[in-house]
């Protein structure tokens, strides 16, 4: 009798142990993951003064896919991809050491729209975060050609005041990495 009971308990605990499951982890909000490149725009005539851009749209070069600047707007709203601020954040490729963008100034204005192509060269490092977040990529902009503006003869970005790299090692979005003058 007693022996049978014990055997039953053994079988029962076996069933329970099998049905146990693992909880799914979610990457916590606020975790520092892959940082975007932070760019600030300055006045080329007064290099210490921040200057707002006018309806700037940034796309991965040649793709026509805009970087999102207003996440609160609907995906079919043009303004979602436009900015009039003096500071922007754009994503770099985590699978390539070069990211090239079309910086379209005064986007949608048929007479004034001006596209400048900017190339960023960097090295990458993949860093472990946690089980839930996986890995992130940190970037280090090349010292000599970290940022290059393609000269197309009619750049809106200043060619006399060259862009500067303020923080070559990109590990978070709390600091300005690059300054662009126009």
């Amino acid at each position, binding site marked *: 009798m*007693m*022996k049978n009971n*014990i*055997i039953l*308990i*053994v079988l029962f*605990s*076996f069933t329970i*142990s099998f049905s146990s499951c*693992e909880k*799914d*982890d979610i*990457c916590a909000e606020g975790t520092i*993951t*892959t940082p*975007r490149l932070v760019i600030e725009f300055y006045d080329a005539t007064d290099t210490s003064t921040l200057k707002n851009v006018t309806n700037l749209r940034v796309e*991965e070069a040649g793709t026509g*896919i805009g*970087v*999102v600047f207003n996440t609160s707007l609907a995906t079919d709203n043009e303004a979602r991809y436009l900015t009039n601020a003096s500071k922007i954040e754009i*994503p770099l*490729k*985590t*699978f390539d050491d070069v990211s090239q963008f079309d910086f379209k100034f005064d986007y949608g204005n048929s007479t004034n729209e001006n596209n400048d192509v900017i190339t960023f060269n960097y090295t990458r490092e*993949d*860093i*472990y*975060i*946690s*089980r*839930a*977040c*996986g*890995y*992130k*990529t940190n970037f280090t902009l090349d010292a000599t050609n970290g940022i290059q503006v393609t000269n197309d003869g009619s750049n809106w970005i200043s060619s006399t005041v060259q862009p500067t790299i303020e923080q070559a090692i990109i590990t978070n979005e709390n600091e300005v990495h690059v300054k662009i003058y126009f």
Partner: protein
Amino acid sequence: MLKYIFSLSFLVISFLGNAQDSTKVYPQRYGVRVGIDLHRLTKSFYDDKYKGLEIVGDYRLTKKFYIAGEIGNEEKEVDDDRFNFTTKGTYFKIGFDYNAFENWLDMENMIYAGMRVGVSSFSHTLNSYTIYDPTNYYGENTISSGDEFDGLNAAWLEVVGGLKAELFNNVYLGVSVRLNYLVSNKQPDNFDNLYIPGFNRTYDGKFGAGFNYTLSYFIPIYKKNK
């Protein structure tokens, strides 16, 4: 009424029977019990991402105390959201079991609690990982890595609770559950010990859990009256 009298007399007889039994001394058998973890064994067959084997053993030291241990080897592929890795390693656990079960007559079942010290030596191969990029502008970037993280080890304490029942002559079926507490953990560079052979999945804290389901054979060595 007749039925009740019959039952009652049956009960009295059974009590009498018990009273008689208590005067008779059943010698206790002492020896070594060796067995295998059926869970790890069967999982190796039905789960193509797992290969493992655990040999268990105990030696009866006194009427209630057993020296107990486990030795095992595991190879497990973990397929998480953010990465896929394979952990391989060997572990060893040693400690004791205390049998809290008062056996009737000559029965030799166990309901026990115990402790173990566990050590494990292992390595991970990171098969692939996905970069966490909240913008997702370029889509998911999953990298086939193949990076190896060797020479890792961990040590932990286990609190064990379990049962062992004698199925038939000297053959026992057992189950145990374990709560693990990680004491030391040599972490790899740029990865983590998300799975430790013998300890199982690790969590943010130091606690873990495990179980086994054993079939073992008792080899009697000597008998004692207590």
